[in-house]
């Protein structure tokens, strides 16, 4: 069973890794540091909403949230297996990690869908 899953899960992990590597830093820098510390003025609510109404932006946001979560799921799963030597909790960890990523994805879809 595991065997048939590993290839697509790994594909999700690695595309997630690519997305995270290219896109996550700039979002973190802007929203986590530059704006809160007041180095630059944050975009106004209207401006942001304007951007988010664009369907392309919606797709972008879902990608930005979903794939890196699957990236996390894969890495975290193996870190738990190896780092803590808890491979016997296999199923539980599996459910937690990919379940988490799936919930995150659903949330992202739901939220962008709510923007009108």
């Amino acid at each position, binding site marked *: 069973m595991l065997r048939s899953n590993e290839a697509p899960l790994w594909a999700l992990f690695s595309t997630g890794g690519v997305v995270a590597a290219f896109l996550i830093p700039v979002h973190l820098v*802007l929203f986590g540091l530059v704006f809160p510390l007041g180095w630059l003025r944050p975009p106004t609510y209207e401006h942001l909403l304007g951007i988010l109404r664009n369907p392309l932006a919606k797709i972008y*946001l879902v990608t930005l949230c979903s794939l890196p979560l699957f990236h996390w799921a894969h890495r*975290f799963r193996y870190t738990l297996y190896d780092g803590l030597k808890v491979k016997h909790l296999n199923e539980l960890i599996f459910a937690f990690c990919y379940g988490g990523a799936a919930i995150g994805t659903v949330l992202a879809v739901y939220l962008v869908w709510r923007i009108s």
Partner: protein
Amino acid sequence: MQQPTKVPHYTKYHPRWFRPRVSVYWWLGQWQYLRFILRELSSVFVALTVIMTLLELRAVVQGPVAYARFQHQLAKPGVILISLISLFFVLFHTITWFNLTPRAMAVKVAGKRIPEWLVAAPNYLIWIVVSGAISLLILRG
């Protein structure tokens, strides 16, 4: 009677191997291992940033008041600290990821494999361009 020992007894002509056990803290023993674990844990901070983004989205969905309140919360010193730590790990992820891609892809031009740094370099270029474009888009207006 034989003396009780913790160790299985050696019997002549039957080798008794010593099987070392790997400790749970194996990754603390060696810098390269620790770095590996940190690299893997960077994914946790990637996930944290995603969560931050989701919360931001929720705030936008809920309206201007919620958005303003969320901005305010992000400026709390504790949250700033978390962001800083996250940034460290997220950058760690980006750099290790870029440097390792050439490993996973043997890019060949005209039958010759091109050197790894040349495969990695475009990543950094694209990264800078993309980051600039996104910043502009968000900041404009």
